[in-house]
């Protein structure tokens, strides 16, 4: 399988990249890790006439806490997240997710920015971002704008990133003490897309009442999905087994999975319920540490 022919440039600065995007309009596509794009080009699901390779642009791979946010440069690789001491010690949800994204070879190339900008509901980071109420920083020649994750995914492979823009940073509010988070996806084999995936972040106060609930679902809706009713059901509640079961039931009810080789609708709904319950428990365990 050989992709259709295209022109290629590897700019050294964001300004150069923006100029190329401006010049080539809708014909241009951004190449980050390329591990979603290149297979799609080989299968002719995508045939961009121009590739803007942003791998040579320095300064887009940072992972740091700053001004109340965990800030991750869009070109941080999955392997960078996996090996980051900051992530390992303070944000276990990323370690959960990055171990489940594709396989080690792909994680050495794949970027967090690409995982989100691809706009695929089957990707894992979007649900994690929903659970953590991340913001996405989008840059263009005109400047930067920040889009809340809830307004980022427009539809199937469509996001808030416009043709002349580049997703440059993910910003996650640093969660307060008493917070725990966790992600898991059910997959048939390593590297498969999720049959269903659930990301949870919970904050509990000293008396055990829920003061924050974030729940994101992977691959059970045309776009990455927030389990809004599940969150509402937990907020302000004591984290009892009943409250957790109710949140899990609502997530299973509200998701919109479709039948495919990974399972039928009923099975996927059931798995969303099971995973939601398990991830809430795991997040709570981590919150108590």
């Amino acid at each position, binding site marked *: 399988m050989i992709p259709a022919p295209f022109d290629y440039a590897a*700019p050294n600065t964001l300004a150069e990249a923006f100029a190329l995007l401006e010049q080539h309009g809708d014909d241009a596509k951004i190449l980050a890790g390329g591990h979603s794009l290149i297979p799609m080009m080989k299968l002719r699901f995508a045939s961009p006439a121009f590739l803007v390779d942003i791998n040579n642009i320095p300064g887009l791979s940072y992972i740091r806490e700053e001004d109340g946010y965990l800030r991750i440069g869009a070109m941080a690789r999955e392997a960078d997240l996996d090996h980051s001491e900051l992530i390992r010690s303070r944000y276990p949800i990323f370690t959960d997710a990055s171990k489940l994204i594709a396989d080690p070879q792909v994680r050495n190339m794949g970027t967090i920015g690409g995982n989100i900008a691809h706009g695929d509901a089957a990707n894992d980071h979007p649900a994690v971002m929903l659970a953590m109420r991340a913001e996405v920083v989008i*840059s263009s020649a005109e400047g930067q704008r920040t889009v809340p994750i809830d307004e980022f995914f427009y539809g199937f492979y469509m996001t808030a990133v*416009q043709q002349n823009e580049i997703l440059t940073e993910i910003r996650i509010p640093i969660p307060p003490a008493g917070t725990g988070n966790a992600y898991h996806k059910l997959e048939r084999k390593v590297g498969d897309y999720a049959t269903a995936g659930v990301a949870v972040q919970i904050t509990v106060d000293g008396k055990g009442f829920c003061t924050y609930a974030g729940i994101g679902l992977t691959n059970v809706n045309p776009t990455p999905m927030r389990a809004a009713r599940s969150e509402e059901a937990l907020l302000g509640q004591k984290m009892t087994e009943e409250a957790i079961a109710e949140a899990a039931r609502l997530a299973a009810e509200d998701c919109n999975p479709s039948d495919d080789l990974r399972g039928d609708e009923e099975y996927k709904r059931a798995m969303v319920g099971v995973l939601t319950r398990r991830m809430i428990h795991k997040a709570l365990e981590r919150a108590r540490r």
Partner: protein
Amino acid sequence: MKNPSEEQSSMQEKKGVSRRAFLRGAGLTTAGTVALSAGLLSFKLEDAKAPPAILGPGEAEVRFVVNGQARTIWVEPRTTLAEALREHLSLTGAKVVCDRGSCSACTVWVDGKPVNSCITLAVDVSGREVTTIEGLAQGDELHPVQEAFIEHDASMCGFCTPGMVMSCAALLKRNPNPGLEDVKLATSGNLCRCGTYPKVFEATLAAAKKMKK
């Protein structure tokens, strides 16, 4: 520099041009709800002084280091690293099996890290260092992982073996003291239809021991 109204009209002209029917990350107009941080005008078009070279669609020069040797090849930008190695440099050790990044038979190292060469563009590794299975042995002396694969009979049909060895050798480089779980994780992307996994794990753990001596 264009003034805003010119910018606007040139954008509109572009919109009129026939669109290619490929999947775009973007596609809709900017949502009214997003916050424009006008104070952060950190990027300007005029900063782009010497525009980067545009390569393709014909052949372009790619210089990189392969198994310690500087190599120059001429390939179309659409040429994958796997093809470049196999067709242009006659390094056929990396196998192309699934050809879409699912099986890892094409695993090579780029700057020391295992990657799938079948979904990495050759132009993308320009200036970087590539190590293939052919570059693992030191002359006639096999890499300890290669030796262990032979000793422990870790290949049957052998088609996944080069990729498998590259994954295992990369693991030992990063972690000289791996447990079984580490080996399983490191080879989790490498598919073996013959089912030699237990032998692969055995061989890799044995190689780790040997390398420590």
